[in-house]
């Protein structure tokens, strides 16, 4: 499914996704939290065909409170598993807008990502797809829901995921 939308909309959505990728790679935590709507959620399902998050196992399912908790943890001076910390680098592409609400300007958009995580002499690769529900506000887009489906969803994981992919 793909929507017909203006070049301006496509560009604005792509810029938002690229900036989000940069923010999480560079650990700009205040900027990360500011990307989300007040009731926004970051969701990584535990299976590829999972339809709902509530009441089911998930790899990530976090609101702003839980995201802030995660940030407080990785910034804590005693967070020994952050010494050294992981370094992330990702590319976001294949940005396809699925729908644009004519009245509100809200967007549903899917995209692909490929990322490298480096930590402790070891490099891991993740690939997958994003699906963002973006809310149009006076101040630009905010994330209502970000769904992240990683290719290796069933693992096994060689280490946990300390921050968001």
């Amino acid at each position: 499914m793909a929507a017909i939308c203006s070049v301006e909309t496509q560009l604005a959505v792509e810029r938002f996704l690229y900036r989000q990728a940069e923010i999480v790679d560079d650990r700009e935590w205040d900027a990360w939290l500011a990307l989300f709507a007040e009731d926004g959620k970051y969701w990584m399902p535990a299976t590829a065909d999972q339809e709902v998050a509530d009441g089911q196992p998930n790899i990530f399912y976090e609101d702003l409170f839980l995201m802030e908790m995660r940030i407080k943890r990785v910034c804590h001076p005693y967070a020994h598993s952050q010494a050294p910390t992981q370094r992330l680098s990702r590319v976001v592409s294949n940005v396809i807008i699925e729908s644009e609400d004519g009245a509100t300007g809200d967007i549903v958009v899917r995209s692909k990502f490929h990322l490298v995580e480096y930590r402790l002499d070891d490099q891991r690769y993740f690939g997958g797809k994003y699906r963002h529900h973006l809310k149009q506000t006076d101040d630009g887009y905010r994330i209502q829901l970000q769904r992240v489906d990683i290719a290796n969803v069933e693992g096994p994981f060689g280490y946990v995921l300390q921050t968001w992919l």
Partner: protein
Amino acid sequence: MPDGQEVHYGDYVQDDRVHKAVYADQAVYESELDNIFHKKWIYIGHESQVPNPGDYWTTWVGKERMIMSRGSDGAVHVLYNRCPHRGSLICNNEHGNAGKAFRCPYHAWQFYMDGSVRQVPMKQGYDGVIDYKDPQFSMVRAERQGNYRGFIFASLSTEGEDLETYLGQGARAAFDDICNRSPQGEAEIVANCFRIIQHSNWKIFLENQLDAVHPSITHHSTGDAAAAMQKKYKDKTGDDAPMGYQFLADFTLPFEKWDSLQTVGFPNGHTQLTGYMGLRPRDPVTLAHEAALTDAYGAERMDEILSTNVHHVIVYPCLSVQPPLQQLRAVRPLGPNKTLTEIWHFRLKGAPDGIYERALAYYYHVNSPSTMVNADDLNNFRAIQEGLAMVGGGDWVSLHRNAGQDTVDNGVTHSVTGMSEMPMRNMFAAWKQFMTEGN
């Protein structure tokens, strides 16, 4: 090497210290597979993982690849995942439904869920050569299989104690305490397995599970962050934060609290840590659970069940079980320095939804691949393994905390404090017994 050229594994284990080789040496590891994982009772899965005929899940017992399947008659079977024809794995998927029969992808030999041969293609090639109904042409069943309250185990040895005897009081408590909390006396597994590789020896994980000194140190950052957000949540919303925040904040309980816990060691290495979490608050969920159990069993039995004070049980050598939170982690050694953990949680049949939500919250915060708790444990495990793999720098690992102070009564060992290293000493007593009993 404590004993020159000839190695006696028993010498690696002393009353209050163990030699680093038990964690890092390839030969010791191979011997552990032979003497422990290929002989003792190893957890396979829960029968509710395979609810329908044709359902199967695969797993490991030591180096062996195993299948748990459900037959058309409802029976659960544990088989080696190997085609008797040319030896290929039969099931390449982690789980699925095989329909009426397993079908080998190489030459399409077909097998019923109990392993017996169903069909061989172009069988004229065997006419007058073999009888393919001969058991040697069936998939091989685990040497022994047992079921304790729905939890399926296998032993790859025809000899040894039966399952219930092997588990004894100490390990049976893990499963009894889960099932008893259900008004129907049964647990049902949630069909989701998180799998995480630990870059460390399997024993390091089991030891850590009952190590009550480490949480406040290892998990300091997570405990602090959770406590801070618990307060912020309340300030901002007026409501108490969800229970998961408390689970995380509990990791930084003061040492006096950990000190007041008990650890109990049983024969065969099974070991318990008695409860520390306030899992019987006066909230509506707990009250509804009490009511459901009272309806089923009466008030006195309800009180007995919910007062059971077992927080964590090691079912040696393969499981870490947290009954009041319905969590189960199975250990699958893949090498001396590599361990797969299979992480599950359960519903209690007939219990209120909120009891499941509590289990799910713990499963998410502590046991999921995004856990902020095991992130720190796994980091420690890797560092421990790397330290133990060195040739120099010392040979022994200290298990001296409160050594010589345990009390033993009828084969059951009690520590003087929850922070004692008795659990490790108890597990190593079994290790020494298992590694030397055949010699």
